[in-house]
Structures are given as C-alpha cells and as structure tokens.
C-alpha cells in the first residue's frame, strides 16, 4: 500500500489555463464511541439531554476529581482498530493537551499524543484503492458552547468527557469524491464493528480535512485545514470549492494570494470556505504525560478476544447475501446500509424461511414506508412491526392465503396499528378467495360479450385472457387468487362453455 503517484491521479484540470493540478487530502475524523458512560466518569451521556444534567465532579472539572478509564470505551476502540486492519499497541499512554476555552472544564483535554493505542490500517474505497491510516487515538470530547442564545455564550458540559477516537488518515485522498467515499466506507466499518453510531447530525462523527494542491511532480502546496463540515456532502462541497480556490490562487501568480497555512470554515449556504480568525499563541498545546493515569496495557489475549468477537463486516455480509442467499447486488447493498437494517433483514429472512421474499418485502415495502409521511415511524427502531411479525405476513402470502396487493394493504395496517397480520386479514376481509364455485361464477360473468378475447385464446394466444383477470379481481374486491382465476378462465374458454 502506498500513495498513488501523481501520474495515477486524474487530478483537476484548470478551466482557465488547462493545467492539471493534483489535490492532496488527509482527513481527521472524530467519532464518538457507543458506550453508556463517559471516558473517564460514570455520567451517562445522551444527545439532547437538558443542559448540565449529565455531569459528575470529574466531567465538570471540579478540583480534586480524578479520571478513571472506561473499559468499554477501550474495547470499542480496539474493535474499531481491528475492523480497520490497524495494529493495536500493547502499551499506550495518555497525555494532556493544554489550552483554554470555556467548553474545556479542566483547561486540558486528556488525549494520546506520541504513544497512541493504534497505528496503521486502512480503508478500502469502492475503486479498490486503499487509503492508509496513520493512527487512531482515544480522547475525551469537550463540552458545548452555544453562541446564538442571548447576550452570553452558554456552556453545557453534558458532552464533556464523552469518549472519542480520532482517526487520522495519510494524505492519500486525491479528490472530493474520494473523500466522500472514504468517509462512507469508514462510517460503515465503524458502524458494523459496533464501535459507533457515526451519526453526524448528533455530532457522533465529525470531520476535518487537510487539503493542498500541487502541479504533477512538484512540491506539495501549503496545507489548509477545513473545519465545521457537518455532512459528507459538505465535505465534498468544501473540498471541491477549496481545490478550485487554491488552484486559482496559485495560477494568479501573485504570491500574496497563495494559500497560507490556516484554518478555514465552510459555509454551506454560500458553498464557500472562509478564513477563521487566527490565534496568537495557536498550537502550543504543551502536551505532557497525564500523571493521573498509568500506562494502558492491552494484552495479546484481549486483542485476540476482540478480534474473534468482531461482528461480520458490511462487505462480507454483501458477499454472503449475494453468494449464499441469492440476492441481487443491489438488494445486498440496500440491506447493508446499516448494521441495524442488516440485522433486521437477517432475522426476518430466518423466520420467514425465504431470504429473497424477506429482501423484497423489506427493500420494496418497509424502507419505503419509513419515508412515507403518513407513517409515523421514521427509523427501524421505532417501527411498529418486528422481523417476526413481517415474517408471519410473508408466510401468509407464500402459503397463498393472501395475494401480494392484499399483503401490502395488511402491512400498511400493521405499520400504523402495530397489530398482527392474522388479525388484520380477518378484520379487513382480505383472505384470498380460492373457492372454485365462487370464482367460476365471477369468471362466467367476465366472459359475457368478450368474444374477441375468447377467439384469441382459442387461436392459441393464452395471454389475451389477462384482460379478463382484472374485472374478476375487481368483482372479488381483490381477494381472488389471480393465478387460479387465470386457470379457470382458460378452462372455461377451452371447454366451450360460454353460453
């Protein structure tokens, strides 16, 4: 694995000069670990809780309070590392990063500086190229400063001390699209490893981009840091903007306009990046070893145990869905959008005894319902159906008790009421009619005056009978089994029974 050479990279061709430029990007991703409590205190974090209700003496930086490491956070961090093919260090160290800000209760952040718990690893892009990782380290989050409510800046320390891993990539990313792909794959890996929810809206995944451009073969340009990128789309948009801005600056030939080492923020409204006020004593964080915490030892046995209990990755699941379960690549992709969905699918498939039917019902019906404004549930977790209730419905359809359109109607009722299929089928009178006498009666009626169809069928065009199935279904109020209806119609025509 190594960085592609400038020749391997398409780069960006300047519209003005026709020159080709090579963008270089490295990403720093902060990701909240899915623990119940904070990294160094027993306070349970919940996004959206009332301000300052989730704190302890430790996370409010009360003098005299001391940090104690959360084992679950360490284990999740190890899992994340293993899922990213990284190397977990046997010994690592915590350090203090010193700076002053109102959301940093101790005046320092506990992080890992020169001996992080993890190094190396990589993320495979859909193109097959691998973006190498430099390192991953464990650290605590800061609190939240709110600037837009009243004359003061308001500080909420609920988030202070929440466990994070910071994943630092090598400067292997050469386009905005690759940055997007990298983030998508990284998120998928962390989610399927069970390490993080990676929910950008709730701030459980945050991303900074280091970006520069240079001419092929030339020395790299000055690195600019982009912050405040709160969605993958924004990362792409900001990178695209910044690449062009930097190219334009260099092509102006005026060195006063060349990019300088700075931090820029992205304004999603205008689609532009702009310089943040620089700080006079920026970046003298005076890191030193955290004296309140001993070294962290992670034994080979512990690492091995985590490796063996690592859940199946998304790519492995997709391969299995296609290979062993016979799903399409497309469905396999849809069903591995999140670990929760994949889990939901697998349970339904098991209970229904038919992966393909489960896949169809979930990707065609259940997922659509989640975006239907008339259905209250907006996520799998608050759906009013379960894998077992959906499997039951699929079972009825497969047994011929219900036709597919009726099945859809029942599912809708299940989604709004939370009740079971059997109950709803009876209540809605949707049980498929397979009573031959009744069906024959409706078929006889449908044949009246349809001499053209009859003639076509008798001439060997069986398909023509399709035109008569609809009216029969209508007469049955949708309860007729369309296959049986077709069979009866053909029999009646061939028997020459029409009067």
């Amino acid at each position: 694995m190594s960085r592609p050479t400038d020749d391997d990279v398409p780069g960006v061709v300047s519209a003005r000069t026709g020159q080709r430029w090579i963008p270089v990007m490295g990403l720093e991703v902060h990701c909240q670990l899915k623990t119940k409590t904070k990294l160094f205190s027993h306070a349970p974090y919940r996004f959206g809780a009332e301000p300052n209700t989730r704190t302890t003496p430790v996370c409010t930086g009360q003098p005299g309070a001391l940090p104690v490491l959360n084992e679950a956070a360490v284990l999740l961090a190890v899992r994340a590392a293993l899922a990213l093919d990284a190397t977990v260090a046997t010994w690592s160290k915590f350090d203090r990063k010193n700076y002053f800000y109102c959301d940093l209760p101790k005046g320092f952040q506990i992080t890992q500086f020169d001996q992080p718990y993890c190094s190396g690893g990589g993320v495979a892009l859909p193109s097959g190229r691998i973006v190498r990782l430099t390192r991953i380290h464990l650290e605590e989050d800061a609190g939240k400063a709110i600037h837009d409510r009243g004359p003061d800046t308001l500080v909420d320390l609920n988030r202070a001390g929440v466990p994070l891993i910071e994943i630092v990539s090598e400067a292997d990313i050469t386009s905005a699209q690759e940055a997007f792909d990298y983030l998508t794959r990284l998120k998928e890996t962390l989610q399927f490893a069970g390490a993080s929810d990676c929910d950008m809206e709730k701030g459980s995944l945050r991303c900074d981009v280091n970006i520069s451009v240079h001419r092929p073969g030339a020395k790299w340009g000055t690195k600019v840091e982009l912050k405040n990128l709160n969605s993958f789309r924004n990362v792409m948009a900001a990178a695209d903007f910044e690449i062009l801005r930097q190219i334009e600056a260099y092509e102006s030939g005026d060195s006063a306009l060349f990019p300088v080492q700075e931090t820029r923020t992205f304004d999603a409204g205008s689609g532009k990046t702009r310089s943040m006020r620089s700080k006079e004593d920026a970046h003298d964080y005076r890191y030193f070893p955290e004296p309140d915490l001993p070294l962290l030892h992670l034994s080979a046995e512990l690492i091995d145990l985590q490796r063996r209990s690592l859940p199946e990755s998304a790519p492995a699941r997709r391969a299995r869905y296609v290979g062993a379960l016979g799903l399409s690549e497309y469905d396999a992709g849809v069903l591995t959008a999140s670990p929760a969905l994949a889990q939901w699918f697998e349970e339904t498939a098991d209970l229904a005894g038919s992966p393909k039917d489960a896949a169809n019902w979930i990707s065609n019906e259940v997922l659509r319902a989640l975006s239907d404004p008339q259905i209250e549930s907006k996520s799998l977790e608050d759906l009013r159906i379960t894998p077992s209730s959906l499997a039951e419905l699929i079972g009825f359809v497969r047994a011929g008790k219900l036709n597919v359109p009726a099945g859809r109607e029942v599912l809708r009722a299940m989604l709004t009421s939370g009740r079971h299929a059997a109950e709803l089928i009876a209540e809605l009178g949707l049980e498929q009619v397979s009573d031959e006498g009744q069906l024959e009666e409706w078929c006889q009626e449908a044949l009246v005056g349809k001499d053209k169809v009859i003639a076509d069928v008798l001439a060997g065009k069986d398909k023509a009978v399709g035109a008569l199935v609809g009216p029969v279904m209508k007469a049955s109020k949708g309860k007729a089994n369309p296959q049986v209806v077709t069979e009866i119609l053909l029999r009646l025509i061939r028997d020459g029974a029409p009067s």
Partner: protein
Amino acid sequence: MSAAHGHPSPTAPTGATPPAAHGTPDRAVVARTAALARLALSDAELDAVAPQFARILGSFEALRGLDTSGVEPMTRPIELAMIMRQDVPGDCLDPQAALAPAPKQVNGFFAVPKTLEAEG
C-alpha cells in the same frame, strides 16, 4: 490534534532548543509565557517577574548540566497497570449543585462573555 501534512506522525516535542533555552529568558519570553498561561500581568508585574524568572532558571543549572543520555524519563513514581471502570452509569451531579459555584449561570447553563472564537 492535527497531523502535519506529509509528516503525519506527531512526534514528541523534542525539537531543537532555541537559543533562549540556554540563555536567559528575556522579558518578551516571559510576556509570551504569561499570555500562554492566561495571566494578565501588568507591565510593572512583568518588570518584576522577568528578572526573578531568569534568576530561578539560572539557579537550576545543576539540572541542565547532568548527562542523561540513555536515561528513560520517569513520569510516575510507581508504575501501575491501568485500572479500568465498568461501563455502568452512576449518579450525576444535581444540575443546581453543578451550577451553584459558577460566577454566572443562565437557564441551566454556565454563562461566559460572548465569544465566537474557536478552541485555544
């Protein structure tokens, strides 16, 4: 933490020591240090502190003269294994108790002078 572009591994701050470290820290160095430490020292205080500072560091020569090549730094007096805590939620501070010692609080928040600047 930001990884240097092209030099992505942070390294321990063992970089070359500027001349000032071997000489006497002047008033400007003390002023910069005070800013870094968030101590608003008046000119008079700086005038008083700078020579003291130099004298104290000068009296620490015995430290700098020692040959420590090959000596492992000692961060803690006793090396213990990290103790770890189970991930079990415990009691939180009552928000009133958490906020009570604050110089200013507004609607359940700690309140500070308006700032738009980022960390550091």
